[in-house]
């Protein structure tokens, strides 16, 4: 579907992506992990075609339709649009008339129903819960009938239950044949459950299954900080360590006399 070959992108003088090579085929489900500023969102935008690389090539299969779901943090929630108006934006290029055709309305209703948003079409987007808001933008992407779905941090800023619902929906879409690339900060809750991961820090540090790439040496190169990895039920679990804080806490405990610990 998509092949990136030695792709370099930059904002201003600083390269954000450096010599990135990556292939996405039909039915792939890829997670991109890395620290803030590592180029995850830029990689998605390069795949989507909204950023042009200054070096390297991006080859897309002819006629490939891409759905892009932005980070919800970037959405202007006070913009006056209802759920239906937001979803119908996917059909901006299809028809000159401003109002939706009967077919378009039916298709939009089908997508909204499928994502559990049926009956919410006339609500303002701000009036929805976190998970529903995320699903509105997935619905907009799906209405464009994509073959490849790009999701930028689909679970950021949501609670555990909502994250579970969103990931369940994304897995369902993958099982229906959509190729998916998503970015995430969440190594345990999201990345560890995906079939393939790319560790990114401007350049690709490692690529493979979670068990292949969620390893202390790879994570230290990716995040620049030591991370411990345990195994739980055959799945890697990342433990965050704060050696400085732990040493400070130990010192504080030692400096208080017996009986003052509870107050300290």
């Amino acid at each position, binding site marked *: 579907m998509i092949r990136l070959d030695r792709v370099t992108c930059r904002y201003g003088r600083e390269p954000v992506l450096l010599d990135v090579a990556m292939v996405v085929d039909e039915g792939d489900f890829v997670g991109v992990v890395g620290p803030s500023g590592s180029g995850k969102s830029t990689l998605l*935008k390069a795949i989507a075609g909204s950023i042009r690389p200054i070096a390297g090539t991006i080859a897309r299969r002819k006629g490939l339709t891409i759905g*892009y779901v932005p980070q919800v943090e970037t959405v202007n929630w006070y913009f*006056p*649009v209802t759920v239906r*108006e937001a979803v119908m934006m996917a059909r901006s290029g299809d028809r000159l008339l401003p109002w939706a055709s009967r077919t378009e309305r039916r298709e939009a209703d089908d997508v909204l129903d499928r994502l559990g948003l049926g009956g919410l079409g006339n609500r303002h987007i701000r009036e929805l819960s976190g998970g529903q808001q995320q699903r509105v933008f997935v619905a907009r992407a799906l209405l464009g009938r994509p073959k490849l779905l790009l999701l930028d941090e689909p679970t950021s800023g949501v609670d555990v239950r909502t994250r579970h619902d969103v990931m369940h929906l994304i897995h369902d879409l993958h099982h229906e044949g959509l190729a998916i690339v998503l970015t995430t900060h969440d190594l345990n809750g999201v990345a560890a459950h995906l079939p393939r991961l790319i560790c990114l820090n401007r350049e690709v540090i490692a690529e493979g299954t979670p068990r292949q790439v969620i390893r202390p040496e790879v994570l230290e190169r990716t995040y620049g900080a030591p991370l411990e990895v345990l195994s739980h039920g055959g799945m890697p679990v990342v433990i965050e360590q704060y050696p400085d804080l732990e040493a400070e806490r130990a010192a504080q405990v030692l400096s208080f006399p017996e009986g003052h610990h509870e107050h300290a």
Partner: protein
Amino acid sequence: MDRLLEPFAYGFFRHATWVAVLAGGLCGLVGTYVVLRGMSYIGHGLSHAVFGGAAASFALGANFYLGAFTWGFVSALLIHAVARRRTIGADAAIGVITSVSFAIGIAIISVSGGFTRNFEAALFGNVLGVTVSDVLVVAGVALATGCIVFFRYRALLFATFDPEVAEVSGVGTKGIDATMAIVLASTITATMNVVGVMLIAAVLVIPPVIARLLTDSFHRMLWISVGTGALCGFVGVYLSYYLNWSSGATVVITAAVLFVAAYVVSTVRGRRIPDAGFEAH
């Protein structure tokens, strides 16, 4: 009743009413996009830039509308180009380009023979002095803008709400930006003589803000904004006849009164003031 209809017996007042209603509706339509794109300040700045073009065309003996429009369009494109580089903010780019343009206009006037009636009208508005051709120019710009909004409604909405995803989805956002620059420059040029350069930003911004306070739906906001703009134009010109106030100022004061009413209504209804809706995103 005769007393109420008295002003309409005069041809100049009928022209004034037509042009004020058309200009108000046009500004309400264009202003919706201006406000939602976080460009409220560009309306204010561009009206000053257009004044520079009007002065230059006067000095060169060129057509007033052509000179003002060209100058405004080039200024709008320059603002977009400077703002895209992100080194300085869009507000600073607007401040530099439009202030310089306004200063050039003032300089040209000072060299070419002082402050004429035409420039006074351009600065402060003189709706009662409009001619049939002025009405036709505003009507033409309103019709063309209406057609652009009608046939590009979906793309304009997408590019206004979420330009990055719109670009990915095949909406040419650079083309939309250029279209908006043309529409804005045309609107300001055409309506300059009605409300004046100094007050035009208010007519562009207040009706959409009123509409935003009253609805959460984009298409309803568009209709309410157009209707409010047209109503402000009509009521403002009508009252200015009896109060003997400046027509432009009366239109803006009418809009301000409606804004206060909408603010009270939205507060009573418990709607939060959607301040973030007016910021760039």
